[in-house]
């Protein structure tokens, strides 16, 4: 069964801290995504990676960076967390060679910045 895992379900950090959110997929997918979801705003794409060491900005990259050193792992970094980054963060992966344009999602990390 396909699986996308995220390092934490819940995380509480202080303003100014550096925060790492980790995502691992076991499907050998080329594409990986980081989204944030806030009430009434749907899912917004933060960053997208289509290969190791490759990344593209999404709709809301400000305040975030990403790292993809290995194919199965995609990390989201908040260099200096702020309260407006309190949100649900969702990671997903997909393959451009599959027969469906399907993104597989992890369970999400609910981050609270105080």
């Amino acid at each position, binding site marked *: 069964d396909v699986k996308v895992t995220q390092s934490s379900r819940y995380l509480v950090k202080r303003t100014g801290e550096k925060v790492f959110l980790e995502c691992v997929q076991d499907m050998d997918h080329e594409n990986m995504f980081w989204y944030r979801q806030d009430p009434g705003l749907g899912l917004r794409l933060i960053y997208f990676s289509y290969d190791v060491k490759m990344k*593209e900005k999404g709709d809301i990259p400000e305040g975030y960076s990403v790292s993809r050193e290995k194919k199965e792992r995609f990390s989201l970094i908040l260099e200096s967390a702020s309260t407006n980054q309190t949100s649900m963060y969702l990671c997903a992966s*997909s393959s451009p060679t599959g027969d469906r344009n*399907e993104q597989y999602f992890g369970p999400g990390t609910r981050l609270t910045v105080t």
Partner: protein
Amino acid sequence: LAKTTQPISMDSYEGQEVNITCSHNNIATNDYITWYQQFPSQGPRFIIQGYKTKVTNEVASLFIPADRKSSTLSLPRVSLSDTAVYYCLVVLNAGKSTFGDGTTLTVKP
């Protein structure tokens, strides 16, 4: 990325058929149309995809007119457990796409 527009919310009753329409006026020739379902505190789950005409699976049907500028997700005989947010996406090669705000479907007894 092609932008999609859906109704913000819809209400239905158990046993009814629900149709959710999405407009995607700027869809490109090679783009596919996909739909996702999301329950609270979970990530979205793929439901169905199509390119043109009609696609049906065990969960839903997807109707796409010839001009492909819109699509309609049809859920037959909904139950309370179909209460969720439904997202329409336009996507190429499983790459970047925009989820938008989705449609919150509430099924009432």
